[in-house]
């Protein structure tokens, strides 16, 4: 299975662990996009962790849009743990989406400051 090398994976015990702050801080640190891959809806081992994650991704999208950064840089995907090829598909889709959007717009200012 191959997926784009641009993707950095951060493992969490459940997507319900992913907080709005984690997503925002990733962007603040210069990530061009952030996506969360959770279990299929209705199949969460902890009942509603993936629904929580989806809501948090939506909150992040809203905040990003408000400050003029494309909200679609944050995305939520769902798959079952046996769907490796699907995982790679999502990665490719996200990679393509972000390449179309270009780099995180706060990067130039961050580089200037550094």
């Amino acid at each position, binding site marked *: 299975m191959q997926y784009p090398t641009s993707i950095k994976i951060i493992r969490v015990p459940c997507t319900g662990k992913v*907080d*709005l*702050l984690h997503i*925002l*801080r990733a*962007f*603040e640190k210069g990530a061009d996009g952030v996506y969360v891959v959770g279990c299929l809806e209705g199949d969460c081992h902890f009942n509603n962790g993936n629904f929580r994650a989806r809501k948090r991704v939506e909150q992040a999208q809203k*905040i*990003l849009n*408000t*400050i*003029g*950064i494309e909200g679609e840089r944050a995305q939520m995907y769902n798959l079952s743990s046996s769907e490796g090829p699907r995982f790679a598909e999502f990665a490719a889709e996200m990679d393509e989406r972000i390449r179309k959007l270009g780099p995180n*717009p*706060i990067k*130039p*200012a*961050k580089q*200037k*400051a550094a």
Partner: protein
Amino acid sequence: MIVADRKPIEEIIGEINDKENILILGCNECVTVCEAGGKKEVGVLASALRMNFLKQGREVKIDEITLERQCDHEYLEEIRDVIDQYDAVVSLACGVGVQFMAEKYHTTPIYPGVNTCFMGVTEERGLWTERCQGCGQCILARTGGLCPVSRCAKRLFNGPCGGSTQGKCEVNKETNCVWQLIIEQLKALGRMDDYEEISPIKDWSTDRAGGPRKVVREDVQQ
């Protein structure tokens, strides 16, 4: 608790757009419980503001502090040594905390980061509803523990009115008629005799009609 709701980020940005050193000041009490102004909301707002300014090509210093309370001197004193570093403070406390900050630190502009709504309860996560208007003359003993001042649109003391239909208020069909609830509660308590008693005219001088209020307790004063 005092229930507040987050202000739109664009409104806050509009107030502080020309500032260079900003403190986002949270409060560990009510606004933390109603998820509007606690440590986490401070972090979210600060992150959004930092990105907003970076996107404009500006590196604005945005610090985060969350105090135990903003309605008591001793906790507000904790930032005395650092307050002069900032040319603006966005307080995520309720209106009480924002005002106490402004009273204490005259030379630093304080901006509210939340809209303060009412005194209420957490019915469930994400749903807060009003329970008390602080009228200063509690009558809950006579009404089965349900308040017609805060929960009856007409603040009736001898309700319900003719607009109560199938347990709902005529002002808003989603609102329960509190007088219907009071009657049901008094029935359950076997206290319908209380209901039959006509309530006297309420003394509203202890409510907001008498202007800003105060509680003086000489027995605990120092």
